[in-house]
């Protein structure tokens, strides 16, 4: 759980200044440090960015009355603006999950 919060917080801060791919960095670092099993690392890493990007997207979606997310949904042909929010969450989650797993595996390799 602490892993989730750390990844989430650091990814949030980095993403303010750096391009989108910086969200992989906290996963790599904290995955390595926490040395959880690969699958568990993936899940925590995924959850962290799913919550961060999903939460940010949901906030903007609501504050914007869904104006832009509805247009993007139509552009992508996905039907509902909430699916656009969901895609955002899953994309962030997938990247972070992979990064966290990679970090943890790197450390396990060292240990072995």
């Amino acid at each position, binding site marked *: 759980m602490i892993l989730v919060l750390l990844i989430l917080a650091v990814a949030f801060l980095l993403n303010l200044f750096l391009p*989108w791919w910086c969200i992989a960095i906290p996963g790599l670092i904290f995955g390595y440090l926490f040395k959880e099993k690969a699958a568990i690392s993936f899940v925590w890493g995924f959850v962290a960015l799913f919550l961060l*990007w999903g939460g*940010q*997207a949901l906030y903007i979606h609501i*504050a914007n009355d869904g*104006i832009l997310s509805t*247009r*993007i949904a139509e552009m992508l042909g996905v039907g509902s603006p909430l699916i656009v929010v969901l895609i955002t969450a899953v994309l962030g989650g997938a990247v972070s999950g992979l990064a966290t797993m*990679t970090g943890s595996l790197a450390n396990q390799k060292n240990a072995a």
Partner: protein
Amino acid sequence: MRFSSPFLSAILLVACLLVLNTKFGSIPPLGKFFDPDAGFWANAETSVPENEILEIDGLLDEVSVVFDERRVPHIFAQNDHDLFMAQGYITAQQRLFQMEIQTYDAAGRLSELIGENSGVQNRDLTTRRWGMPWAAEKKLEKVMQDSSSSRIVKAYADGVNAYIESLSPDEYPVEYKVLDAAPEAWTPLKTSLLHMNMLRTLAGGSSDDRTSRTKAFLGEEYINKFFKTRPASVDPIIPEDRTWDFESIQPEVPESDFIPKTAERIQFWEPDAGVGSNNWAVDGSKTASGYPILAGDPHLSLSMPSIWMEMQLHAPGYNTYGVGFQGIPGILIGFNEKVAFSVTNTGSDVLDWYEIEFKDASKNEYWNDGKWNSTTKRIEEIKVKGGETIIDTLVFTHHGPVMVANPDDTTREPIYHAMRWVGHEPGNSLKTFIGLNKASNYDDYVAALEAYVGPAQNFVFASTEGDIAMWVNGKFPNKWDFQGQEVSDGSDPAFDWQGWIPHQHNPHVKNPPRGFVSSANQESAGESYPYYLTDENAPYERGKRINDLLKEMKEITPQDMMNMQMDDYSLHAESIVPEMIDWVIRDSLNFKEIEFLSQMASWNFEMDADLQQPGFFYYWFREFYRSVFRDEYAQVDGSLRYPHRDRFIEVIKSDADFFLIDNIETDEKETIQDLATAAYKHAYDLLDTYYGKIGEGWNWGFVMNNDIEHVGQIPGFGAMDVYTGGSAEAINATRFGYGPSWRMVVELGPEVKGWGVYPGGISGNPGSPNYDAFVENWRLGNHFELNFYREKPEKALFELTLQSN
């Protein structure tokens, strides 16, 4: 290899990052695009903008930009330089993507932005071959020769660039994120390119080649009947009773029996069929206030964001409100404290094609005036995003750029046509519009018009002094009757344009006795006007309807004029529906079809959204018209010229045995009754298939399928199915995504007042509630009262202060 190998996991991660950072086809790089901090989410507006102080290098003084409750920007500057610099800055702030895509299009550079796509590539090639960038450069030279114009375009460009430089990638308009592109620096050349775009849209029509083919196939009498005869109902822009007190200069008609090699197809630009406009002004004798009222509504292909943006420009000696094109300084349609002005397009044949013979395949020499003459050449490079650059060589004769007239013809040698176009003439239209912005009386208006080259427009004018006027204005070649109606002989200099109609001979009228002036793209002047302008004008219906109404109206108020802009009455329907009903053979109809026929008979000819007859009439007449020509016209490879509906109706009503009525593909001899009946059944089936059983689904508001698409055709970014009345032939010319792109009414007087509305908003950001904020008012014809400030107001929605470091 085990799945939990760190190596494999790392590769997977890197691959994932790369894939999500790459654009595939039209799919944006997904990671970048969905990033809540810098992707499209960053463009979602979550609060009204706030007051801000912005540092902008190059301003001479402080500028205030007040945004009113509809977010219309009102720029208050202390000198002209700052005024136009701020206009550039604010326009870019609201509409940067639109500005850029229009100039990429006009420069034949869309491939650079969009990448490999054959449709886009062809469009770019055609744009280059039309000499658009070449002529834009010539135009810019002319603008730069005028010190005041050059200062304006430079200040404007500096303003746009100040805005672009202030942007970080997360602040780019959302369209750049969709295309994975970045804005580039603005230059005065781009302003010229936009001007070329106007010329192409409004003065880029020609039917020379089609007329030549039609004459070859159907004979000279047919041409005379349809393309050399004015419909009797025409009520020209400059009234018939206007007399001309000048000695006209008559061009020499060549003695020649030249017949062009009938070309299969020519790469002419197909101008949008929906281009046309209304404007009118009434003088004080007809208004409740005793001062003139002016109205204008330019019809164009409707787009999101709107092609127009409202703005007020205020500086010492300058106070003008209205709408302009994004990328062109000043106001194009609007008013100031003393005068008002608006434009409609002039039907004038200012584009002709000349058949060219080259000495050999090098195209270095062409035959003219009994000798070989040198051509000139220009290399065009079309860069393609992610692809190879395309090189194209343009060849010019003294007429203009040369194109292959039969590109798809494999059986014959290429046939070459050179283009002579007023769009290639150097000119400075900026001077005209800035002049109108600052005009305070009739003489200023005429002086401003003199510099104008094209696209030719009918400039309506009204002043607080009480004058109203209409000038059919532009640079017109002085042609013999019907010169350039067909493809011309490029080897004979006698076919060249021999000069220009002097400006003071352009059709115009000031304060006519009837108390009003008007234009709706119909014939420019009465038969007595001593020059030839064109064989192609809009059908008479809109113009006549406007004049019929204005003749009867008295004690006119601005509200009357606004209502008139929403008039849906169809003179076109009135002129043919009773006959078509008579022609229908009732025995051939089923019960439902007969029932609907009585509904058609009771129709009031209003093209209203809630009625079912307009949509039925639209498809019924369309099929009837097509069925007359379809069979014969299909006999010829390549397109032939179709008559306008008004002349067609005139002919068909007077000649029931018109020779094209018979369907040559059947053994029987069809009558006009047969065609009207078959078309009736066709229309019924069509509506039944696409709009369901007869009922509300047949309402014209649905059937006209009025979609306002995004300027870059991005799905989801338009305003779809905008339910409204109107028709091409009605004053409210809305239909199928075309129509009044801005409706304006101005009451002159000690305190000039304006009303207006367009379908769109100020903001070009699809993530802003303001993006489509005016669409509903536009749909209902509820004009906004415009905030025309005499000085900077106390109250504002928000205010930007621009100042130099």
